[in-house]
């Protein structure tokens, strides 16, 4: 099969991709922040749609994982990077050519853009022949680009470009300005008079004095006088400028479509690898997960929340990793424990690693197997509104009903602190009903809750608790481990909410 796309195997996936919206679960899982960081500085590529579209296809995931692995070879990464930098440069030149007014100026910017394009393509083709490639995607792309650079059309484009560039840079002329007349002729070896003047007055030199040289601003555009002179130069060197005119008319669509698309799509990989490199530099591990569409026995060892880690690293704080696994009939993590101890982080991490696995990316952790989901549903408690308790509970129920009616047995559901706005008795009742539905659907689920009863509700539930240092309960480890819920967390949560813990009271009474 001839090379089509470095990102998609199914042509259907590409249709209308640029019209996609951000998936609903992005915000709750902080994936929106992660994707913002990943795509930062690459606005011109409009990469976000590639992150919005999960291919939902094991073959595509494998295709991408192979390509990603190839790109982890620094040599390949560097030559793709230099290739796309050239393309960026080329696009800037074209933009400039469009903005400018005078013909010969526009034409030269255009010529420069074509020149950069030819260089970029030739050197990439050359580089790829020297690099060991293992992925189907890259192997096929190499074949494509090698054929392209050997094609007659490309060869003649390249030769014409180089010839014109050479001719134009050999042009040298003299301008005589006298009164309001400008006379332009070919340069005739007239001597440099500035040098003579400098030499004559050299003997007075003594110590440092002021620099009187004016700094002239060099705008890209030309003024009328420069344009006039350029016209005169074009008359002096008529053949060269005629050739330039001709070149620009002939080559308006010079960029090969497939190569142009490749240059955009490859940014998906480049941006992600650049993003995770800073975590790798800190010693954090990434791995290519096995993605399975049948087994729900998922696990990931040494994983962490990418959005949180990104913040922690910029503050130079350490990142705590966690392990999780579900085996046999286990489907549901019930997370309990003190506040601000990493419960929500654990829930987000579970969602994030599944998501990034589904788009073919390496994920946080050193060993992982994950499930090929069809959709992720999340419900995170929103900002509390004291005046609207009833409304909130009602909203929550509507939202959860909506989730449960859309979810299939291949979906993932992540719930964070729901039903906090009602009595404990109500909350337990409602939670149990929801749990029944989740169990029935055989959903993969993470549920952060203060209701201990849920953790032992069924053989499908697994209780995990965020841990504290035994001697100092106020110190959190942010480690979440499998452990029965101990019932303390709720009281502590409430006490913390009202700032009535030992530490708090001491602090407050002092002030």
């Amino acid at each position, binding site marked *: 099969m001839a090379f089509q796309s470095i990102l998609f195997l199914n042509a259907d996936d590409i249709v209308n991709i640029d019209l996609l919206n951000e998936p609903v679960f992005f915000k709750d899982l902080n994936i929106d922040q992660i994707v913002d960081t990943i795509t930062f500085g690459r606005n011109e590529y409009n990469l976000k749609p590639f992150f919005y579209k999960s291919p939902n296809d094991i073959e595509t995931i494998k295709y991408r994982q192979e390509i990603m692995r190839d790109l982890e070879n620094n040599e390949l990464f560097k030559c793709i990077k230099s290739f796309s930098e050239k393309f960026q440069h080329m696009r800037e030149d074209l933009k400039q050519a469009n903005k400018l007014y005078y013909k010969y100026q526009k034409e030269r910017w255009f010529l420069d853009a074509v020149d950069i394009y030819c260089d970029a393509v030739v050197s990439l083709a050359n580089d790829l022949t020297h690099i060991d490639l293992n992925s189907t995607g890259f192997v096929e792309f190499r074949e494509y680009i090698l054929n392209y650079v050997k094609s007659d059309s490309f060869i003649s484009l390249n030769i014409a470009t180089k010839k014109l560039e050479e001719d134009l840079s050999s042009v040298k002329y003299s*301008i005589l300005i006298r009164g309001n007349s400008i006379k332009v002729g070919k340069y005739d070896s007239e001597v440099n008079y500035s040098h003579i003047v400098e030499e004559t007055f050299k003997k007075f030199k003594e110590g440092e004095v002021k620099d009187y040289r004016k700094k002239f601003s060099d705008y890209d555009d030309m003024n009328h006088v420069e344009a006039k002179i350029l016209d005169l130069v074009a008359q002096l060197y008529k053949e060269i400028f005629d050739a330039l005119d001709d070149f620009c008319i002939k080559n308006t669509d010079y960029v090969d479509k497939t190569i142009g698309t490749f240059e955009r799509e490859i940014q998906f990989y480049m941006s992600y690898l650049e993003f995770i490199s800073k975590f790798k530099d800190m010693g954090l591990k990434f791995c290519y997960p096995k993605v399975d569409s049948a087994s729900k026995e998922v696990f990931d060892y040494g994983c962490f929340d990418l959005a949180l880690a990104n913040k922690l690293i910029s503050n130079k704080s350490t990142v705590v990793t966690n392990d999780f696994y579900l085996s046999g009939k286990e489907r549901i993590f019930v997370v309990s424990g003190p506040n601000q101890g990493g419960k929500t982080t654990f829930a987000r991490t579970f969602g994030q690693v599944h998501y990034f696995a589904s788009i073919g990316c390496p994920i946080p952790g050193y060993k992982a197997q994950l499930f090929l989901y069809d959709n992720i549903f999340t419900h995170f408690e929103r900002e509390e509104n004291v005046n609207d308790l009833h409304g909130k509970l009602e909203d929550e129920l509507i939202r959860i009903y909506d989730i449960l009616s859309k979810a299939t047995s291949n979906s993932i559901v992540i719930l964070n602190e729901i039903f906090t706005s009602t009595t404990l008795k109500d909350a337990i009742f409602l939670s149990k009903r929801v749990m029944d539905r989740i169990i029935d659907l055989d959903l993969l689920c993470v549920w952060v809750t203060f209701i201990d009863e849920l953790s032992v509700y069924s053989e499908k539930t697994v209780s995990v608790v965020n841990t504290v240092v035994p001697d100092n309960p106020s110190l959190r480890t942010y480690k979440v481990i499998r452990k029965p819920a101990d019932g303390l967390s709720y009281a502590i949560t409430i006490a913390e909410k009202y700032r009535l813990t030992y530490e708090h009271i001491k602090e407050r009474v002092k002030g």
Partner: protein
Amino acid sequence: MKTLLLYKNRNFDMNQELPWNEQILVQDLGLNIVIDAMAQGDEFLYDVAYKVILTSLNDVDEITYRQNILKDCLKHPSIIRSIYDIAVETLENEKKNFWSIFSSYPSSILHSSIELMYMYIDMLIKLRKIAEENIDNFESEGFRSLFSMIQKELNDEYIETVKAHLKELKFENGVLISAELGKGNKGINYILRRPNEIKQSLLGKLFSKKATAFTSYIPDRDESDMKALSELKDRGINLAANALAQSADHINGFFKMLKTELAFYVGCINLYEELVKIGEHICFPVPLYADERKHSFVGLYDISLSLTMKKRVVSNDLNADRKDLFVITGANQGGKTTFLRSIGLAQLMMQSGMFVAAEKFSSNICIGLFTHFKREEDDEMNSGKLDEELSRMSDIVDNIKQNSMILFNESFAATNEREGSEISRQIISALLEVKVKIFFVTHLYELSRSLYDKKMDDAIFLRAERKPNGERSFKLVEGEPLKTSYGEDLYKKIFKK
């Protein structure tokens, strides 16, 4: 081009750092009176004299170099003053007439620089004339090399070349600039060119007949185009304008340096003439290397006292070889402070290349001069005063080094005699260990006695002279410390009436 009248091989730096204790020195030694006499009311002369005197030379050859120049100056005061006047006039001309060099446009920078250069050339020619007339009458290395440098560098041929360039730089036939095509075919590498000589061609033709050239005209009324055109011209002449403006600055710098360095000698001439009026002697001192020890003089007087009194004052003689410690004791108001001052002033003046206030004078160079004088005006309690004294001493210790010289005037007397003596002894013996030369005026009998009893080879004891009838001669004589400081004499004198 350098003037080199203060140092043989470098310029004098008006902005150089002065010793940290400059103000203390000026105050303790009465130096401002000497500098006032040099300046005769001229601020610039004052500034230069102040800085030159306070940045002492530590090298015998450098001192001799200045002494020789100064000898020439004292012989030819009117010539020195007329050279100084040329420098002053040039600098004033520049200030009055050429402010437009502050423009940022190369064309106006060039224009102003050309005019300025014409003025400088005229003044340099004047200077050359004086040099030509006097080179044989001057003996010092400094003046001879300055004069011959001016003759050589500014010969007629060079002056003609300069004038030719100044004319050419007016570009009466237009500005010729070469260029190449840069990014987007915009002109780059604008370089000013001198048109090729065209043999047997029509006037004004700059491209030979065969070569093709195209001409275009900018409508005079189009302001923005005319502006663009002059910017293009500016790009061409940018470097030439810079070279010329910088040369003008350099020549200005030459005249500034000439003015500054001569200002010191003009000050010396002024001081000399003042002393001649009073009838005082001067001599050129003989400096010895810093590691030698000598203080020998005949007729050393306090120049600042003499200038204040406008008459001749008491002088002292001394012949002290290999002495590190000078302890001065004796009668109140017996001339001890005056003596200490004359020692300090002579040292500073010698190390700035000046003559000194004596008939004969020779001493070793000191690496840094320090004074620690009792501060009379301090009216605090004794303990506070001692604090203050010790804190000043500590500042000195931070800065003093081997072969420095320090003058103590009734220091550490702000406590009882035993303690003051002990403090002083410890300071003195420590400073002697590190080879500091010490003059110590003191009333502390216990101190001076104990120092005397040590019978040190390198110490000398001087005493304010008191004639048997109780009268003071204000002269110091060698002699062991005596128990009383003749307060009784004073008491009698005051209560006599």
